[in-house]
């Protein structure tokens, strides 16, 4: 074990007797004392308990726990995942903390006012077992503001009253808003207001026109001195454009709000000076550049690739209009341009064609392509799969998975909406994000073996997939391929690759989230080992959850059912084997309290082994059922 580390060795003795240097010595006291400051328990909170803080590190050196077997590590990993799912609801929740006392510390003279070393100090001292990471701190007045994980707050608060660099620190939790990092000075805010006033004055709501002509003669801008020099004028224009672009919440509103801009009479000699207009208002429809000093095409060519929807452009009064052929050239640059200097250069139809020629065309979308051999293995498998996945995942794992099956999932949330994906993100095996094979998660997040997979599925939210009888909701491609290993150990076996795109309803009760998710899931099926319930098994199951909805246009005009390959999915009674039926009966019986005989009747009747329908018809007929229909306990 570690040697006793100074006065801390005394266990629970209160350190009140030692007032001068309270006695909590740093475990690496010899180094870096100056930057970090001393630690002492004294002063403001003499009665607080001695921290169990960072005394002896013990033998928990690196590498001591290496070498455990992969399988047990996987199991352990899974266990902690599952426990984590129940216990740590606040993993993403942040709390704002205010820390007082840095101004009196020795570290206050550091270049950053001591913020960095204070936060490092807290990260190091707060918890000896867990690494605590704080957000970026901001010094505002006498306080350092910082965000911390909710889980860590308790351990951080223990440091309340500790002495840091010679001064006691006070930590408090606060609900006040975090001070914004970039402080806007009063003058800047003032200027901003004036520029917005300029925009407001020059905006014509009726014509949806932003009239920025002759800015040099503007009173407000003149008083601000923004046109004192060329560079100042360009900067002012940038600021104006930025403000104009950010007055609208969405690109759509902006497009509707400002359709025309006039930059006439501004002595512009190169559009470079006003280039940001293209970024702020890319969807502009009318632009007036008349009476400027543009003298060649190259002075306007920087906008060649922008303003794709520009319909009218005025260049009269510029030297370049005397150049021959400038109109043809300009027309080519802007595909939607229909009026140049008041002359019609394109019809709307021509404009639409020109725009189309300018943009690439996504490949056409064909319906599901099922090439799964003569036995419709894919259709039968998928029917059984999604039904069982929705209703009885352990049974699914037991039926189609064996000790060598692998499963993993990846989730790609919308940026900023990670919370909605919490239940999945901790398992997400996105190798790109994990940074390659060196990350242990690449091994840990790969679930091998039916039991491990079933265990892991338990912690995923409940799902309801759409029925395969609605082909418009699904895209399924599959084909056979050769040269899988034969389970007998000799020779090759055929495999079946199935790639499914669809959506499911989700009820995430741990996070209280409900909604629809879109997914892609690919399976590799291969022959089973001897004694398995089905002739084929899942070798690999890979689930990708994403935010994309299939656009309506993708659904082909021809109904998908009419196309031959999809027929096996769309028609006929679902072929369920006895084992699956037994599972369904059992599940229905469990959910409704009916006995097995009535459950079977209910399922095999009009419901035609559709679990949801069966459940529905039960709800309808519930009152009419005889008592004998229910199991004794119900």
């Amino acid at each position, binding site marked *: 074990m570690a040697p006793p580390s100074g006065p801390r060795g005394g266990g629970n003795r209160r350190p009140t007797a030692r007032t001068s240097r309270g006695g909590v010595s740093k475990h690496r006291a010899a180094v870096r004392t100056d930057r970090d400051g001393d630690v002492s328990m004294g002063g403001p909170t003499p009665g607080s308990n001695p921290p169990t803080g960072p005394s002896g590190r013990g033998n928990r050196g690196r590498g001591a726990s290496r070498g455990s077997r*992969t399988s047990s590590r*996987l*199991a352990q990993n899974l266990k902690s995942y599952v426990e984590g799912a129940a216990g740590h609801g606040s993993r993403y929740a942040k709390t704002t903390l205010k820390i007082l006392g840095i101004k009196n510390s020795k570290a206050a003279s550091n270049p950053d006012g001591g913020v960095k070393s204070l936060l490092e100090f807290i990260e190091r001292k707060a918890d000896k077992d867990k690494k605590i990471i704080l957000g970026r701190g901001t010094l505002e007045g006498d306080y350092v503001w910082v965000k911390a994980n909710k889980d860590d707050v308790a351990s951080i608060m223990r440091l309340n009253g500790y002495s840091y660099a010679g001064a006691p620190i006070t930590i408090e939790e606060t609900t006040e808003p975090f001070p914004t990092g970039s402080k806007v000075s009063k003058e800047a805010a003032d200027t901003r207001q004036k520029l917005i006033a300029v925009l407001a004055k020059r905006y014509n709501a009726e014509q949806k026109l932003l009239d920025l002509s002759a800015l040099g003669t503007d009173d407000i801008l003149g008083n601000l001195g923004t046109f004192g020099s060329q560079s100042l004028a360009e900067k002012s224009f940038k600021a104006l454009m930025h403000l104009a672009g950010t007055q609208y919440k969405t*690109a759509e509103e902006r497009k509707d709000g400002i359709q025309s801009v006039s930059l006439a009479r501004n002595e512009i000699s190169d559009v470079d000076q006003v280039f940001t207009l*293209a*970024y702020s208002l890319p969807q502009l429809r009318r632009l007036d550049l008349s009476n400027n000093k543009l003298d060649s095409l190259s002075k306007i060519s920087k906008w060649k*690739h922008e303003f*794709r929807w520009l319909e009218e452009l005025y260049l009269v009064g510029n030297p370049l209009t005397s150049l021959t052929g400038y109109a043809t050239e300009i027309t*080519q640059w802007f*595909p939607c341009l229909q009026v140049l200097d008041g002359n019609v250069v394109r019809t709307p139809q021509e404009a639409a064609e020109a725009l189309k*020629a*300018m*943009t*690439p*065309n*996504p*490949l056409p*979308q*064909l*319906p599901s*392509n099922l090439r799964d051999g003569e036995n419709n293995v894919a259709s039968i498998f998928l029917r059984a799969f999604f039904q069982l996945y929705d209703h009885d995942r352990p049974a699914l794992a037991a039926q189609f998975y064996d*000790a060598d099956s692998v499963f*993993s*999932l*990846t*989730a*790609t949330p919308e940026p900023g909406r990670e919370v909605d994906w919490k239940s999945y993100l901790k398992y997400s*095996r*996105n*190798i*790109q*994000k994990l940074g*390659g*094979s060196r990350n242990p998660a*690449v091994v840990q997040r*790969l679930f*091998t*073996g039916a039991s491990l997979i079933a265990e892991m599925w338990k912690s995923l939210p409940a799902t309801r997939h759409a029925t395969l009888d609605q082909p418009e909701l699904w*895209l399924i*491609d599959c*084909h056979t*391929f*050769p*040269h*899988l*290993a034969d389970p007998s150990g000799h020779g*090759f076996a055929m495999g079946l*690759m199935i*790639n499914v*795109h669809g959506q499911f309803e989700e009820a995430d009760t741990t996070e209280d989230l409900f909604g629809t998710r879109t997914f*892609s899931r*690919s399976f*590799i099926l*291969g022959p089973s080992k001897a004694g398995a319930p089905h002739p084929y098994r899942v*070798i*690999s199951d*890979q689930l*990708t959850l994403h935010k*994309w909805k299939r656009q309506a246009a*993708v659904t082909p005009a021809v109904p998908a059912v009419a196309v031959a390959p999809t027929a096996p999915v769309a028609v006929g009674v679902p072929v369920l084997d006895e084992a699956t039926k037994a599972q369904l009966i059992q599940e229905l019986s469990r959910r409704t309290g009916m006995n097995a005989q009535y459950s079977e009747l209910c399922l095999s009747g009009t419901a035609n082994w559709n679990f949801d329908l069966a459940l529905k018809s039960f709800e309808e007929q519930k009152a009419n059922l005889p008592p004998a229909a229910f199991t004794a306990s119900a």
Partner: protein
Amino acid sequence: MAYVDDTNTRCAADAAAKFVSWYYNQINEAKGISQSYVTNNETYKNAGHPPADICVNGLVCATPEDWEKLLAQQRDAPKAATDKKHVRYLVDTYDTHVINADYRFGATQNLIDLHGVNDGVRMMIMINVSGTVYFGVSMGNYDEYAVKQHFNDVFILVPNWDTLGKGSKYGKKFLIASQTYRAY
């Protein structure tokens, strides 16, 4: 409990990383990809391997060159203002599974002896890639001009025996035996 050997898992992850970065770079730059399909590999051809199965948005392409043509057709924008890439694939996520750790089709006995089952070489692997494809581009602010779609590509890769023997030439360690593509 049976477990997939770590070496295979890690090697598959590395192979996937290399493959994904190479493949999407090639198609973004409008460069060829057909040489990395088993269809165009002499060793596989001579051993009697069927052509690579390529299924694009539900359409089966007989040869990798057909797929290249489709990609070219998709890129086609005769009047595009820029020389920049008109179609860009950005990978958001990929994942890989080893689906046969003891792949031996077309391999010589030497190669089988040289690379053990747990060496992370003789593997058939499945790679699942998802991301965003942007159609159209401007000089700066792409998003306002581009049409965006989601794409999903599932590959089955098999070892390229030509590069795995002692003293054999450099090159890609895996070839594409199957590809299923969807963009919507």
